[in-house]
């Protein structure tokens, strides 16, 4: 599978390109001031307002200052968490590389742990640079009901201009 690789707090994670809509440079965001600490605010992506979440704070690493290499990955999320509808969310990552081909099945793959609240952490493989863990993007925000209360914009069905 084609993945984008990022390193947070010295740990390497892989994002499945199937969930990625596009990659953006860091743009200005409007802070919410309320909600979970990883919810940074709203960003304007070509006229559409999407919530911006910080991966660093989701995976419980020390928050880092914005850098030139920082990227916003626009994810398309769908599943039972969102009542079957699709939504788009901006994910702030400290750096990004790829896309690369990686396989998370078969021999040498660790399937990951099944603790409550860890469902977004997928299987782990080792490559020439070390261990890479797959992030299940659709589970990233699981367990945080607050996000569900947010008026999420960019539902897939109405996003006729995707890729345009």
């Amino acid at each position, binding site marked *: 599978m084609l993945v984008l690789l990022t390193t947070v707090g010295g740990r390497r994670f892989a994002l499945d390109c199937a969930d990625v809509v596009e990659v953006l440079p860091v743009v200005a965001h409007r802070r919410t001031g309320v909600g979970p600490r990883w919810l940074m605010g709203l960003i304007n992506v070509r006229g559409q307002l999407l919530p911006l979440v910080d991966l660093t704070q989701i995976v419980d690493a020390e928050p880092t200052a914005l850098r030139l290499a920082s990227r916003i990955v626009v994810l398309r999320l769908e599943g039972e968490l969102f009542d079957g509808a699709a939504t788009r969310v901006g994910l702030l990552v400290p750096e990004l590389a790829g*896309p690369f081909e990686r396989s998370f099945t078969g021999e040498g793959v660790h399937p990951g742990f099944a603790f409550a609240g860890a469902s977004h952490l997928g299987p782990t493989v080792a490559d020439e640079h070390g261990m890479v863990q797959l992030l299940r993007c659709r589970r990233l925000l699981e367990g945080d009901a607050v996000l569900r209360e947010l008026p999420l914009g960019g539902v897939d069905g109405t996003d006729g201009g995707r890729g345009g």
Partner: protein
Amino acid sequence: MAHDVAFHRSLLGRSILLGVVPAVALVLAVVGLNAYRAWRNVTVQLEEDLTQSTELVAREIDIRNQRHTELARAVAAAQEAGQFGRRAETLRMLETLVRANPEIHGASIAYEPDADGNDAAGATAGVPAEALGEGGRFFAYVRRDPKAPGGLRIETLQDVAEDEGLWYAFPKQRFERSGVREPVITKPYSYLGTDIIENVAPIVVGGRFVGIAGVDVALSAVQTRAGDVARRLGGEIYIETRGWFVAASTDAAAASADAAAGSTDAAAGAPLRTSAVAGSALAWIFAEAEGRTRAGGAAGGVQKWLATDPRTGDESYIVATRIPTGGWTLVLRKSMAAVTAGLAETVFWNMLTSAIGVAALVALLAGGAAAISRRVRAARALAERIASGDLSSGSTEVRGRDESAELIRAMDRMNADLASMVGAMRGACARLATSSAQLAASSAEQRASAGGLGESTAQIATAIREISATSGELLQTVESIDGGARRTAESAARGRARLDAVATAMTGLDRSTRDIEDRLEVIAEKAAAISTVVVTIAKVAEQTNLLSVNAAIEAEKAGEAGLGFLVVAREIRRLADQTSGASFDIERIVGQMHASVTAGVEEMSRFTVEMERGTGEVGAAAAELAEIIRAIDGSFTAFAGVRASMAGQAQGVRQIEAAATQVAAGAKQSSVVAAEFSGVADELAHAVAVLQDAAARFRLRDEAGR
């Protein structure tokens, strides 16, 4: 020395004459006046008291008498009204009467022999034998007796020697002679052992005297009442009736009170206290009282007078009044000695207090005057000693703060001040004598030294001429030094000109250096512009990279159809990465160039600083040379000053010569003055000797023993 002053003229004598004698006279006058007023008060009050008391007692006794006579008349009236002859009933009535009237001693009734015709019947029921007299005659007496049953005893009436049958015969005679039925009061007499007064009324039935009814009163009752008053007043009271009198004086009253308090029997054996007026020691009082009460007219009028006992000559105050019922006379006597006793005591104490006061006054005055007198005498003695020139006495011990003490102290101070003044004068005289001797000696010396001074001035003139020659040589030396200094100044001026040329060259070098610096800064600005371009290139490369990533993602999503596009995207990404690397290299080279330029600028700055320091040092050297030149110029001025002062010195030497000549002339003149001065010093010594004689007249304390 002090001569004595006569006592009547001394301070003590005068203070006693002027202070004590008037005070004593005043005190005596006050005491006398007080005594007179006390006497007046006592006599007036006593007179009033005696009069009132006498009147009161007399009225009281009169009322008693009236009451008792009324009782007697009531008994007689009962007989006349039909009780006559009913002997048993009469006895019961008498008993009732006595019981009902506590002040009555007894009651009696007596019939004429067989007046009721019952004599023959003798002792019948209710009439005991004790009630009957001779021949069965009714002759009853009921009297109190605590020992008898019922407290009363019935006895037979008896004639006693003393009364001479008065109680029966007197009313009978009065009725039969003049028809008087008024009750009578007998004189006091002793009846059956008790001193009594009897009130007797005649019983007249059918115009015929048939008997008497009597009520007895113990004499002690009257005596007790009168005695109380007599005791209170401190006098004696006498009651006179029909030529007899009874005393109610203090002692008699006390005895009578005892008798009254006890039983009647207790008084039974007491002797009769009545005395006949005639021949008694008091006969003259009653005679005077009789005369005055008669003269006074109406009964009850109170007479009072001051009487003298014709036998002893004692004065007494006497008050007399008549008691109408019974025709008694009440006489009160108070001895003047008793009146004046209290008064004398008052006067005595007054006199004693006054005497003590006067004595204290005299003692105080005498003490005060003696102290003052002593001090005044001491002051006088001191003053006389000072007048005679004796100042040797020490300070006098004085206590107190009054004027005399202050006088003594002032005299002491004066003495001490005089002594110290004379001492100081003597010291000054001694010093003056010494000084005048020294003065004479020194004037002689001065004369000698004036001669020496003339010689010295000649030597000084010679020495001054030598100084003048030496100063000319000195002037030559100074001028040679002046020439050397001029040459030095010239070479210093040449060095300074060369240094100025160096300074100009260094300024040109500095300007070139600044030019180089400006050009290096232009290079640095260009390098910064190149950096900006490189950043732009790097941004474009980054955008390209992002674009390629997104393209790759899209290609992946397109599946098989996107495979070719995926390859293109990868190529683009590779190009972008190369661009990024190239721009990084350019940025690095530009950075190195910038660093070189910066280092060049720093070097140039450091060189500029060095240059500036060199310029400064050249300037300092030039300034120092200028300082040397100025100093040499200054020395020229100084040498000119030296030359001028040398000339001035020569002038001064000439003036000194002239002055020395004048000094020599002055020395001659001062020799003459010193001779005159010596004469004056001799006169001063003579005057000092006179002053010392005058001071020697006083004798000071530390010389007192000599």
